[in-house]
């Protein structure tokens, strides 16, 4: 579990994970968009 980040800043680990998911086009934003009603 991630440490509760100090007020407002997000841990470097999360930022790196987010960055690599985005740059490797694996981020959730690229998952097939489903038109949920």
């Amino acid at each position, binding site marked *: 579990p991630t440490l509760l980040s100090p007020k407002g800043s997000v841990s470097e680990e999360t930022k790196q994970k987010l960055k690599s998911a985005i740059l490797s086009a694996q981020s959730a*934003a690229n998952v097939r968009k489903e038109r949920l009603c």
Partner: protein
Amino acid sequence: GRKKIQISRILDQRNRQVTFTKRKFGLMKKAYELSVLCDCEVALIIFNSADRLFQYASSDMDRVLLRYTECGEPHESRTNADLLQALKRRGVG
């Protein structure tokens, strides 16, 4: 708006689901309006009580999140605890 401050989880599952769908769209609409009116980038990520993801981004979620990873300290950072304080102060004020 409503002065009610102490809101709590909707117990009835059906009502909770209907409220979620309605309020989620309303939140996305308000985020859309903010992004257009004030020329800003907005990203909204919601995990519902069944852990399903719903997301909105004014232009492109990846772009907003990438900027987020490169950004230092946020100018303002709030959680529910902070908002509850702020609403209580307003409620009293």
